């Protein structure tokens, strides 16, 4: 199987600035206090992904999952190491797309699609499908996205991303704010993506949906890759399994979907 993503010794460091203004900085310097601190959000991570694999990326809050995805889709650049990908990348990072709050839903769909690499023709062809999928009333499409509910903008973002013909699909907590019917629809659609041979990167804190979607799990802990392998084992490593043993059996039940965030 051909390779699709290659991540080699990737490190991303962030600088935390404790003081912002000139006054604060001078006061802190005068008192000999630290004004900034650097820490690795992603620390020497390496792995390769084959075309068609579906990867569940897990880890506690702040472990570096979104940062890693940002480097894979090219929003951020690693400080050390290299990321190489093959083919188009689409997806959502950290709940919600990059929407401009002052633009209408329609303008944002067009802009987002163009940024993701769709051509003018492609957008014209798929616009109706995108709107249908998002199920946002037409009257809202003409108004500012800034006034949308968080679920509404998540719907719109997912709808655009899923309609891009891409080799790689990144889904970072896409289901966090959607309502139940929409979550169900998204999961079904992501299964289609997976089954069509595209590479799927799925970030979720819900063991159940990772089990359903993925055939390999990566776990980050404070930026380091501490596990890379089988899904069930991975979930054990995270100790997500003993808390919710019902995950496996009753995944399709209403309760599970409700808890699947």
């Amino acid at each position, binding site marked *: 199987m*051909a390779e699709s993503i*290659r991540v080699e010794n990737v490190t991303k460091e*962030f600088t935390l600035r404790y003081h912002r203004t000139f006054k604060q900085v001078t006061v802190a310097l005068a008192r000999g206090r630290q004004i900034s601190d650097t820490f690795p959000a992603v620390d020497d991570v390496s792995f390769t992904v084959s*075309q068609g694999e579906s990867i569940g990326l897990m880890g506690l809050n702040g472990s570096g999952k979104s940062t890693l995805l*940002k*480097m*894979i*889709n*090219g*929003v*951020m*650049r690693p400080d050390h190491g*290299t*990321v*190489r*990908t*093959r*083919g188009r*990348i689409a997806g959502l*990072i*950290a709940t*919600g*797309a*990059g*929407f*401009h*709050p*002052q*633009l209408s839903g329609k*303008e944002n769909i*067009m*802009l*987002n699609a*163009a*940024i*993701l690499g769709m*051509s*003018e023709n492609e957008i014209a062809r*798929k616009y109706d*499908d995108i709107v*249908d*999928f998002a*199920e946002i009333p037409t009257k809202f499409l003409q108004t500012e996205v800034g006034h949308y509910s968080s679920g509404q903008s998540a719907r719109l973002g997912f709808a655009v991303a*899923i*309609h891009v*013909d891409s*080799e790689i699909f990144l889904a970072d907590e896409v289901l966090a704010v959607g309502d139940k*019917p929409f979550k169900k*629809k998204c999961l*079904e*659609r992501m299964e*289609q*993506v997976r089954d*069509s*041979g*595209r590479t799927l990167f799925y970030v979720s804190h819900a063991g159940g949906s990772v089990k359903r979607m993925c055939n390999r799990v990566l776990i980050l802990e404070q930026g380091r890759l501490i596990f890379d392998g089988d899904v069930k084992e991975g979930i054990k490593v995270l100790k997500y399994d003993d808390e919710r043993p019902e995950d496996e059996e009753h995944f399709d039940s209403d309760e599970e979907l409700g808890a699947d965030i």
Partner: protein
Amino acid sequence: MTDSLQASAGASVDPAYDLGEDRPWEDPAPSRGLLEVFRRRYLLKLLVRREISARYSGSFLGLIWSYINPLSQFFIYFAIIGVIFQLHDSIPNFPIHIFSAIIIVHFFTETFNAGTRSIVRNKAIVKKMAVPAEMFPVASMLVSLYHVFPQLVILLVAVLFMGWTPTLSGVLAVAIALTIIMTLGTAMALFFSAANVLFRDFASFVNILTNFVRFGVPMIYSYTMVGDRFGRFADYYVLNPIADAVMLMQHAFWIGTLTEAELNFDDKGQAVDRLPDHLFTLGFTMIGVSLLILVLAQYVFSKLEKQIPERI
């Protein structure tokens, strides 16, 4: 609901799209700089179009503001400088002299100001999506350029009334003037838009800087006065690309409205050079200089670019 689910379910994976097994390895965040902007013209077009509608979003008069702005400036300068300080007498056809300068100055300051803020204004996009950040300052420049044309039309109507006839050298002068400002404006916007992400102070700084631009060009005073008052300093004065762009505009529109006598002699009957010699040579040189500054700005931008998504 199930219906729409079914209907849209089939469309996500385009059967015509074949998942390439042979796609080349790529850096997901390439740094091709401005070249990438021109490769993605459709995205640029969308950004420009939405910026045109967004620059005055939420305002009732909307686009009209971009004419009220230069026109009000025009009347202020016309009234204060012309009437109160009596410059009408020494600069023939003073309104045309001012207005051809205002178009250039306004184009530059709008590009510089809006361009400096452009990346921060689009932070929702920059944070989440892989888009070459150069896109935004370039779009700002094109939006400002778009607003130049109606102003040119106003000016054209005015000079036609004054018996002006178009010349080839005038057309060339306008083209050079606009090219200088497009290049220089993009360079400044590029550099300061990245700097503004790191420290928002830069936007305020640029605002002050643009105030000086008005006084560094022959708008409310004439080039002749620079020579009269400062003598040899005029040689350095023409090293300012914006001043040259302004004088090229005046060559195109203002000079053509002057009578033979006004062209050669001032109101006291003394012989004058209304504009510097070798204006076109200066113009072409300044295009070169602006391009050089642009290359430099792109270089600095590439150095700062990495920090943009995390610091914004």
